């Protein structure tokens, strides 16, 4: 009884976040990815594209592109439309316009591992070998497993004109082209000057500086360890040197078919594939 009363007062004082039950509007655009797949960087790129008057910071990016898990339904309902909203959730049919980022799960697992150490969810000496099976089972975050998340979106939306999907690796390799595609999707004139400015204002160097200055203010870094940074090396293929071979093998034996569909090469090239998933091909096209 007392516990119920305490819970009641707590929920009244803090209505909680919109989260999975968020009620969307048809003109919303969602920036979706599994956690640690380049969402923050893309958020910066988009915020700098849409709001070129001032360079975006970590704190203002949160305000310009709020997350469904950072705010209440009430708060989000009062924002000016059309909104761009960040989310990590698996497929949601209410999200009518979606920018979806995929990243090699071998890099994602490393990045999540360090982030959870930073947040003191994991102790420093927690072995990666124990983390990987939990990552595969989808036990390390509330957004399903990497495969659940990716497959649920790609199988339902890949051919939809309201769905723009690219790989983090493409965004790294050909940033200008990807940002031009983002601009077009967001109905911003893809002016090369604007694109370059957005990229410049979202560079790893600048974002690291911002993290130093704003770590104590920003929701994702507040009250976390300062010796591990949120923005780590921001590269692709880090797993090659850092992920134990047994872990690589474990991930590939579980998700090899999906990974190959998405264009990530694995040590074995079995023909088997997930027939519900489209094949992702590297982005092509020109910036202008």
């Amino acid at each position: 009884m007392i516990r119920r009363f305490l819970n009641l007062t707590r929920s009244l004082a803090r209505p909680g976040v919109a989260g999975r039950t968020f009620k969307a509007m048809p003109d919303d655009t969602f920036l979706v990815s599994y956690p640690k797949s380049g969402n923050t960087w893309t958020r910066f790129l988009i915020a700098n594209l849409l709001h070129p008057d001032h360079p975006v910071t970590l704190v203002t990016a949160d305000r310009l592109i709020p997350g469904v898990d950072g705010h209440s339904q009430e708060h989000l309902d009062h924002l000016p439309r059309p909104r761009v909203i960040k989310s990590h959730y698996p497929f949601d049919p209410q999200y009518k316009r979606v920018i979806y980022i995929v990243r090699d799960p071998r890099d994602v697992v490393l990045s999540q591992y360090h982030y959870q150490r930073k947040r003191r969810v994991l102790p420093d000496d927690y072995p990666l070998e124990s983390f990987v099976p939990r990552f595969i089972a989808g036990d390390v975050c509330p957004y399903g497993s990497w495969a659940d998340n990716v497959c649920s979106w790609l199988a339902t939306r890949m051919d939809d004109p309201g769905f723009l999907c690219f790989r983090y690796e493409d965004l790294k390799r050909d940033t200008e082209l990807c940002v031009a595609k983002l601009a077009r999707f967001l109905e911003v004139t893809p002016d090369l000057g604007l694109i370059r400015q957005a990229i410049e204002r979202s560079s790893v160097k600048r974002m690291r500086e911002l993290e130093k200055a704003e770590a104590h203010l920003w929701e994702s870094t507040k009250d976390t360890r300062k010796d591990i940074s949120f923005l780590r090396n921001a590269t692709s293929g880090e797993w090659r040197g850092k992920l134990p071979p047994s872990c690589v093998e474990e991930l590939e034996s579980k998700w090899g078919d999906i990974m190959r569909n998405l264009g990530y090469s694995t040590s074995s090239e079995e023909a088997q594939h997930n027939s519900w998933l489209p094949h992702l091909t590297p982005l092509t096209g020109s910036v202008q």
Partner: protein
Amino acid sequence: MIYGIKQVVKYLTGMDHAERNLAVRPDDTFLASYPRSGNTWTRFLLANLLHPDERVSFLNIERLVPDTSSQSSRALKRIPSPRLIKTHHYFDHRYPRVIYIVRDPRDVALSYYHFQRKYRQIGDQYPLENYVQDFVQGRIGSRDWGTWAENVASWMATRAGQDSFLLLRYEDMIADTAQELARVATFLGVEVSRERVQEIIRLSSAARMRQLEQHQSDQWVATKNRRKDIPFVGAANSGGWKSLLPPVSAALIESAWGEGMTSVGYASSTQLARQSQLTR
């Protein structure tokens, strides 16, 4: 703040619907499908399978196989484990074990049309052709179902082939109910005799369910206060679309979802025509 108060009051008074807020338990099994795909029939079959001592009817089905969309969080909390829970939700990664029923979307569209007339969500005059357009574009139903293709693909792409997932086709269930029921029993780890299977099928037959509906429709949450001249238990057959759905509507569904339909074994009208020519 006001939103928070509303939520809490709804929860405490049991006026909410569990939906995505359902607290999932590790030993839960979900009976999932798009609406109008044979879910209620399967619910009856499974309630009879799991509860041989109960007289399964619309009066106790919400206790035996509760629905996430009509039952409150608190009502679902009171159901003892292991629970079998009915849902129409698109993919939810939290569901540990899932029985998923898929039905030919051309039959689903027809059945849904009559269902929405029953629910007074569309008028009797609303043309079926327009309705199928709404159906394909997802302008009907709850925001928690998605379109037929989204619902099916979201489950199949993530769970097909896993030990914790059992796919049932409504058409196979119609063709050989005993065999499909045996597959479910194995999946649920329930032993059942051949005689009992026949008994369960009889207790869950369309004729018996229609009879129950006649007497109990005022007491079941899904039929209470709905039109009485259109029954909830529909035709309970497969392939009705071939004679009842306008060809243009069938073509619309096929052009929108052809690939997904083929993946779960539903041939297009042209494929069917070719087959019948070959066998003639």
